[in-house]
């Protein structure tokens, strides 16, 4: 197990390095510098600015500088806002985004897995049909459509919840629903089909043949197996939530990292865009690592250091 974790950690570090390198060079390859705005700056001033941000140095030197700073978790200054660093931008937005995203993941897991399990057990029952229908609906409707509908009906029309911005607990409701709808639907579907598949496995029949009461057959023999693909989907799930949060934070005017990310692109604030891509890359690699470790905990076949 320890060897497995170590191996995963090393792999993830390599992945993180690849992410940093690729994003760095791709950003550099984009046409137009950070200071190429409509107003043409005089040559001398441009040179000055470039010297200040070390943009006049050779590319490889810039790259190694950047890499060194990333290791120290210093993502550099913002090009657009004097005195703000990329770290400031991330730190400021992250507490908001983490709450919104974390809540969405939590709700998806806490509701999605049991609903999926019950749906599979009462296959084609009322709950199963209703949730399957809803799941298809939410999977088909993009989250910004759901966000718009929620905002309009529950926010503007019925005034049950504030339609936008951030602050009180009530502000959480609409964006959280909009953000978790897809992942919730996805998890219900995944858990349900995974349970249904497990139902027909030989080892479930073996368990029944032993005379184990049905509750234990489901609880001990089926759920644990059915959860393997669910846990493995943790990383893509969080990726979905992250991408979704860009849109949702924008629609609901929530001051999170996702919105800053979108804004930085429209502002051509290159260091912020670069830094945030790296940040998101690390976040995802981290979640992948957690998912891998959890999978190994549940499924012994995944662990590499087996005996014999």
């Amino acid at each position, binding site marked *: 197990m320890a060897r497995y974790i170590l191996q995963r950690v090393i792999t993830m570090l390599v992945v993180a390095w690849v992410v940093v390198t690729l994003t760095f060079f791709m950003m550099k390859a984009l046409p137009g510098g950070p200071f190429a705005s409509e107003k043409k700056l005089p040559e001398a001033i441009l040179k000055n600015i470039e010297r200040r941000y070390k943009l006049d140095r050779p590319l490889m030197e810039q790259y190694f500088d950047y890499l060194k700073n990333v290791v120290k978790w210093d993502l550099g200054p913002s090009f657009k806002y004097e005195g703000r660093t990329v770290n400031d931008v991330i730190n400021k937005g992250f507490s908001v985004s983490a709450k919104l995203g974390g809540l969405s993941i939590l709700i998806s897991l806490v509701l999605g897995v049991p609903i999926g399990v019950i749906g599979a057990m009462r296959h084609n029952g009322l709950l199963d049909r209703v949730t399957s229908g809803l799941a298809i609906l939410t999977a088909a409707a993009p989250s910004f459509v759901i966000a718009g509908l929620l905002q309009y009906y529950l926010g503007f029309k019925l005034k049950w919840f504030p339609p936008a911005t951030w602050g009180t607990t009530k502000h959480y409701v609409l964006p959280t629903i909009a953000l978790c709808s897809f992942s919730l639907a996805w998890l219900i579907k995944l858990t349900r089909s995974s349970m249904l598949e497990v139902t*027909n*496995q*030989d*080892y479930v*029949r*073996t*368990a*029944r*043949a*032993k*005379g*184990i*009461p*049905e509750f*234990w057959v489901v609880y*001990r*023999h089926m759920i*644990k*197996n059915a959860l*393997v693909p669910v846990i493995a989907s943790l990383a893509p799930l969080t990726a979905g939530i992250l991408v979704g949060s860009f849109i949702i934070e924008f629609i609901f005017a929530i001051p999170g990292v996702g919105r800053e990310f979108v804004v930085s692109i429209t502002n051509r604030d290159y260091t912020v865009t670069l830094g945030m891509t790296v940040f998101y890359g690390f976040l995802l690699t981290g979640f992948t690592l957690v998912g891998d470790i959890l999978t190994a905990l*549940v*499924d*012994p*076949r995944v662990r590499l250091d*087996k*005996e*014999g």
Partner: protein
Amino acid sequence: MNKPLLTIEGLETQFKTYAGMVQAVRNVNLTVNEGEVLAVVGESGSGKSVTMMSFMRLLAKNAVVSGKVEFNGVDLLKLSNKEMSKIRGREISMVFQDPMTGLNPVLTIGTQMREGIMLHLGLNKAEANKRAIELLNKVGVPEPARRLSQYPHEFSGGMRQRVMIALGLACNPRLIIADEPTTALDVTIQAQILELMKQLKKEMNTAIILITHNLGVVAGMADRVAVMYGGRVAEVGTVHQIFHQPRHPYTWALLRAIPRLDEHKRRLESITGSPPNMLKPPGGCPFHPRCAHAMSVCTSEAPEMTELGNNHRAACWLMHPDAPKVDFNQEVTKA
């Protein structure tokens, strides 16, 4: 020895499918006596597994089962689920065909062995562990104490099947149903497992229903043999009767298909044609489309079981007094 332990009477099992009703088991009658080994043979699809799963009540919800299956005086098909689960694993246990998929991959062997023991024998965890170690020892799994904390993927196929057998023995059942317990294993391990079962049977005097399509295995282990075809019992009798006085053309065909060391020149003959589609089984005797002796009556009416003396029975129109006489010795050895 001759006291019936399990009596199957008029068992019928159908599966509701989108394509229609699959007639998997049709009017099966069988008896297993205490402490005896009944071998059930027949090509795959002949309804052997479904017969067993029907009275063990392990079939999916789309199965419709009727008939009477008395075990030790109680009709298993009439028991509540709770009463049935007290019999499963305790009185009657099953050893399934595929040891690679029959064990839960995410639970240790110990957990899987203990649960039945603790449940049925009311032992605590430590006692159950002791019993599990004892059982693994008995079925020849080396280092049982260490093995208990391992997972199925750390065992070879043969070792897994030993574990499955240990699971089957766990609560000293009166009947073990072994459904092709060696089919998935290679030949040497097959022999070891069968030797093990023979020896355990002698020690514990457990009755065994052994499903197999290997007649060699049957000759070595069984007391009596039931030959199944198309969801019906074609012939049933002692090993001697089935091997030396077979009366059903399907039994002849099965016997012809056994490779023999003393007859190099003869090609190993597999039975021509294919087993019937149980969605629409042929009318009359299910074997008639493949039978060299089929008569016109065989296509229209299913033959009744005919008693041939000493509990040897066959369901074939050739048993009818008006039918032509066929010499079975010639039929079996025919090239």
